[in-house]
């Protein structure tokens, strides 16, 4: 499949390039642009990024494989990144992960047959106080997970309803 950036993408890429004195720093943000457009950064997409920025393909490949958020292969429509690191581990992150494995009928790291969900276990997402939690497709955090909340999330996603940003209130001082 031949991948092409749209005019809009190219405009955004120009904006990104303008931030830096050289073109190489645009590698990471432009890989993001590509992933947003194509859903992944498979080798052909990496090639497109290299061509667009006039950078060596090997360089783009090295960068794409260093950072875990880039999908080097096609994923499900929704990628569920469940944090199981330290605080989430303490607060039941693995229970949530196993619950999702059972519920989706897949092992961690795999995608459901209908291509709807990919389930991953990830490292600390910086939401330690709101554990256990997961991130949906590199975007919204869903915090304070319970089996019920997971059920609802899956139902919503199946209906195409993506989660809203959860604003977590600051602890009020009067509580102290």
């Amino acid at each position, binding site marked *: 499949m031949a991948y092409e950036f749209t005019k809009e993408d190219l405009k955004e890429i120009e904006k990104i390039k303008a931030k830096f004195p050289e073109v190489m720093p645009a590698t990471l943000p432009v890989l993001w642009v590509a992933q947003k457009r194509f859903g992944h950064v498979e080798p052909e997409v990496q090639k497109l990024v290299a061509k667009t920025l006039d950078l060596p393909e*090997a*360089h783009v490949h090295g960068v794409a*494989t260093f950072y875990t958020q880039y999908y080097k292969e096609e994923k499900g429509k929704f990628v569920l990144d469940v944090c199981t690191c330290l605080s989430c581990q303490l607060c039941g992150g693995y229970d949530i992960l196993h619950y999702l494995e059972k519920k989706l009928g897949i092992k961690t790291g795999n995608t459901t047959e209908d291509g709807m969900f990919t389930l991953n276990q990830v490292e600390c997402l910086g939401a330690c106080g709101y554990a256990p939690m997961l991130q949906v497709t590199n975007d919204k955090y869903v915090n304070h997970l319970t089996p019920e909340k997971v059920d609802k999330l899956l139902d919503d996603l199946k209906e195409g309803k993506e989660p809203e940003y959860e604003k977590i209130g600051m602890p009020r001082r009067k509580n102290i």
Partner: protein
Amino acid sequence: MPEVIIDGQQYEFEGQHKLLQFIQDLGKEVPFFCYHPSMSIPANCRQCMVKVGQYVKDRETGDYETDENGENVIRWFPKLQTACNIDVADGMVVHTQETDELVRRAQKDNLEFILINHPLDCPICDQAGECPLQIQTYKYGPEGSRFEVKKVHKPKRVQLGPRVVLDAERCINCTRCTRFTEEISKTHQLTITSRGDKNYPITAPGAEFDDPYSLNTVDLCPVGALTSADFRFKARVWEMNQTPSIDITNGKGSNIDLWTRDNIILRITPRFNADVNDHWIPDESREAYKLFNENRISRPQQKLEGEQILSSWNNAIATLTEQIEETDNSKILFIGSPHASVEENYSLGKFTNLLGLKQPVFTPHIEEGTGDGFLITDDQAPNTNGCRLLGFTELDGASLKKEVKKAELVVLLSDHLIDRALLSESDLADKFVIAFATNHSETTKAADLVIPITTAAEHAASYVNTDGRIQRTFRAKEIRYTNRRLDLEMSEGRLDRYGTNFDNWVTEDNKIDCLPLWSFISEAAKSSGLDLTLTEGREIMEEIAETLEPFKGVSYPVMDEQSGIQLSIKSKEKTKA
């Protein structure tokens, strides 16, 4: 002068030095893998750990502070330092593994780490015998392994490109190969993929590692992760002899080593020369090893009724002598060659001189646009400047054709003029053609008499590169008439030294039945009643240096000592790379 104290010994120094290089230059050793003097210093292998401190100076007086015993007070760095990236400084105190238990321990610890995920498959690895990891493990590594869990598995036998094969499990992530394509060849074809202990070097998916300098990464690789697709499994390094030589595939004169076993050249590797090729050679220069082995002319050959048949040396000498005697001097054309050495061309020239013939002519072998500004030159021959400095008449293709037309006897030296498309078969059809040559070609096919001569691997002779530097080769390979054990200049490998004639690795057929040009010419001169004895390159060069101004001061000992001598050439002769 500033001083540094290494293992209790004081050394003076001037200028800027990295500690590891400084220690190496002293002839001492600190183990390392990732450091390379011609590339950036990532300090990532962490092998060259040493303990570093600094004499404490009194701020006011500028003198070193001393303790109650009168010893200088030393402020040690809180951590061990990698010697590769630290600058030598005045009053610096260094402990290497030779004097410090902590340093020994750190180096051993590091090797233990390097080895845990390494496959330890030395018995089947091409690198064994010349492997820094193997060598340094024996010297500095742990005796056993405490690693009892599963190793990381990575791709093996990956054909990275036409010439390089990757075994990612052997890789220790020194990044020399990726740095090479970034900093030296600048093709940027390699990167490290993935992260942590899953790291390994690779091309972009689907891309080929066809960098024209790709095989240098095989030399650089401190383990057997990158091996040469061509050389793989051909020989163990300890079975081979290593002989210094000069690349003859282009005009750069890159310094190389020829690796022989049983008189077959098995591979060519670069030899360091800061003034010429640094540590590198192009891949195509390595291919040249085949020229020394394959398609060689062995025994003189003479055309009889249109067909070349094997002849004898006596017959060859007689034929040459006869032809020269029978042909009108003005109808004899000797053609020298930029592909042949200074000594060979000189011998040819001297022969024509004694015969009262005009000096040989030659035509440079330049292909515009093939050079890359680095180590590949437009000049396809190793000795164009040598021919010029000998005073040979330089002809372009058209003039050469004209000269040939006028001649009845053409004597050709090592230049495949038909293959180069300077002459056609018909140009030579009605002449008597004598070709001194090393390999069969369309040109030798057209000759009436073909006299096999030695290649750069079989004689010691000199070549003047595009920059005017004269450098010489050594005998790497025996011919039918030489004997490695009697020739003090030839290297002896383990097998040569300890093998017996009954060992089945000795193959007489691998010795080519050929002679150095000067030996043949001496014989031919004798048969013509001329006083000419040319015994070997070393003496011929002495004669050249005495008689020809441009070569004044040139001799084999001086070339050997200085890795070549820069001659003064006219700037127009500095053929552009």
